[in-house]
């Protein structure tokens, strides 16, 4: 009695859609047929080359060749283009494989239904079924494709780069070929003196920066929010609007602006220090002061957001808690320590941790303000205020040390992602979300 399901499944395995047609689902079958036909046309030329490309990364460099006695430059294989083309083809191939699998499973299922004496669904019924029961999955296909091609594919590509020798001066296509080198890049980065010194130095500053910038903006925001929310302060809305102005100015503008404000020679800040009889400070040119400057500027940019967030939380703290505390004779400080602080910390903890993770990767704050400078002579292509992110940007954009940059990117990614995943999985909104309502 297993004839329908096996036959349909085998037919679908041979050519997508045949099983569906066998099951009398003609429209669905034709759609599958068309998909397979199109993908055959696409893959016939490309698939073999894709596998070849991903293993060899091309095998003929640019070279001079004699054509009819005249030496001519013949362009060779461009390893990086080959790598990415292969990657794109293989990803399409994976999608088709999934579609193929689904088509077999569908044919099998419908066949089984027919054996049980049921009519197979008409096309209309199929569409209805999907809209009612597979709604979420079909909704997610569109954003999923976008993410697949513009996020996942590039990430795989960059991870692969870390295992190649794609770096200046010896392995820059199209003139030269790129090869797989395994873990050599990581070994150099972590253990080779010239690189590891820079790496650990920059890593330390990255962590110091992330901690300091998160703590300053968070508690700064908390203090400002409390200040405005005090009993007896008038015009609360007015103060709030003024204090969120820095948040409303586009970040790129405010950072470029700050760079000018703190300019050592002509900037107004040093000018004012001069009026008060103080010497000017090397805000952006001295390694120590540059670090101070980025923290201060980051406070200016970041405090308003924390303030808004915490103000929102403050309004949710029940009044009667404070009243109960007052009856017991608690001082203002006690009320803050026992009620306000725990409540605020509790509900903003996930945001706080996300901010920390975001600060590790805070490219704009550093790059637009100091550009990672002042230059540090002991470092490989990095300055004193460079974070890992800005350093790797410089390595790709200015130095063409792409494999090194990718390796740093992977390490950075592991740190940040591990951290935030661990945190996110622990939050209530992930664990107990169905219990909220």
């Amino acid at each position: 009695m297993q004839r329908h399901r096996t036959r349909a499944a085998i037919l679908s395995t041979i050519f997508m859609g045949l099983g569906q047609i066998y099951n009398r689902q003609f429209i669905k079958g034709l759609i599958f047929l068309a998909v397979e036909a199109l993908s055959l046309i696409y893959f016939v030329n490309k698939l073999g080359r894709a596998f070849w490309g991903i293993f060899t990364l091309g095998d003929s460099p640019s070279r001079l060749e004699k054509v009819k006695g005249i030496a001519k430059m013949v362009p060779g294989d461009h390893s990086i283009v080959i790598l990415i083309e292969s990657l794109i083809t293989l990803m399409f191939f994976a999608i088709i494989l999934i579609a193929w699998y689904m088509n077999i499973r569908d044919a099998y299922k419908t066949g089984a239904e027919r054996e049980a004496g049921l009519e197979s669904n008409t096309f209309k019924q199929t569409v209805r079924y999907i809209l009612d029961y597979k709604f979420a999955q079909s909704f997610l296909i569109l954003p999923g494709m976008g993410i697949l091609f513009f996020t996942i594919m590039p990430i795989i590509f960059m991870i692969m780069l870390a295992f190649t020798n794609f770096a200046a001066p010896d392995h820059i296509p199209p003139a030269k070929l790129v090869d797989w080198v395994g873990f050599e890049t990581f070994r150099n980065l972590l253990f080779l003196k010239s690189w590891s010194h820079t790496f650990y130095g920059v890593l330390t500053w990255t962590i110091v920066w992330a901690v300091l910038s998160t703590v300053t903006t968070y508690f700064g925001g908390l203090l400002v929010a409390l200040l405005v929310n005090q009993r007896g302060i008038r015009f609360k809305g007015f103060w709030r609007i003024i204090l969120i102005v820095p948040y409303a100015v586009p970040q790129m503008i405010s950072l470029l602006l700050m760079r000018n404000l703190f300019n050592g020679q002509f900037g107004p800040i040093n000018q004012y220090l001069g009026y008060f009889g103080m010497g000017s400070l090397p805000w952006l040119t001295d390694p120590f002061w540059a670090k101070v400057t980025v923290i201060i500027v980051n406070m200016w940019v970041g405090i308003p957001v924390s303030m808004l967030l915490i103000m929102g939380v403050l309004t949710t703290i029940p009044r009667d808690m404070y009243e109960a505390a007052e009856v017991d004779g608690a001082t203002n400080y006690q009320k803050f320590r026992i009620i306000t602080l725990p409540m605020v910390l509790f509900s903003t903890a996930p945001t706080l941790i996300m901010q920390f993770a975001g600060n590790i990767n805070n490219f704009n704050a550093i790059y637009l303000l100091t550009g990672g400078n002042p230059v540090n002579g002991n470092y490989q292509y990095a300055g004193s205020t460079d974070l890992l992110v800005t350093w790797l940007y410089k390595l790709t954009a200015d130095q063409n040390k792409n494999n090194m940059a990718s390796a740093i990117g992977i390490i950075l990614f592991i740190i940040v992602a591990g951290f935030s995943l661990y945190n996110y999985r622990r939050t209530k909104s992930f664990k107990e979300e169905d219990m909220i309502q």
Partner: protein
Amino acid sequence: MNIGRKLANVVRLAVSYIILIVLAVAALYPALWILLASFRPGKSLYSKTLIPEHFTLAHYKELFTSPVYMFGTWYANTLKIAVFSMLIGVVLTLLTSYALSRFRFKSRKTTMSTLLILGMFPGFMSMIAIYLLLKEFNLLDTHLALIIVYAAGAPLGGTLIAKGFLDTIPRSLDEAARIDGASNFGIFARIILPLSRPMITYMALTQFVGPWVDFIFAKLVLRTKENWTVAVGMWDMVNSQQNTNFTLFAAGAVMISVPIMILFGFLQRMLVDGLTAGASKG
């Protein structure tokens, strides 16, 4: 005792007001400084006084008329890119967060964790790959490329926050509508959309602001000057002629900031609701 307490209160308030005033000056000063600098004659960064001796609109005029700075074109480009990527991005984010908030399906938690992790990847790490991908599809130096990339990236940043917000909309509303015969689409359009206005505002605004300030990626994709966005233009202005034409930069900065600040002002209430409801629910 009573007088002592009153006095303490007055002192506390006085100190608070002083601190608030200092903070307000610190918050407003840079914005004010650049605004006034944009009206200052001359080109230099340095000025003796904060308020210029006389005001001029010459820099604004130069921005829009000078053949070197095609600020008007850049402005129109950015507006176009911002509007389209905002529309598409918000729709994609809403779809994703609606699916994740309201439906229970296999691999749902994995999807959420994946979104979170992918969002952590330094964006420009993927630039070379995206660049080559766009080249493959002949999209380099087009605005369509930027719109696609910005919109495709939107669900990564916004989904989890939006999902947190949608979770707070009572599920009983959906169920009531379902009993009345509403389909999934109907519930989405008639119940979820109207109730998530603050969230949509927040997402739309962040999406809209993105193209105005992103210069790294835009710089990579847009090669010809007529196609630039304002961010690329401004970056070029600062970088190629360090401080030699500061007042012009100031005028450009004002032109970019003012519309965005006005939007912020109008949408402030919604913004605060969206931000706190989506983010603070631990």
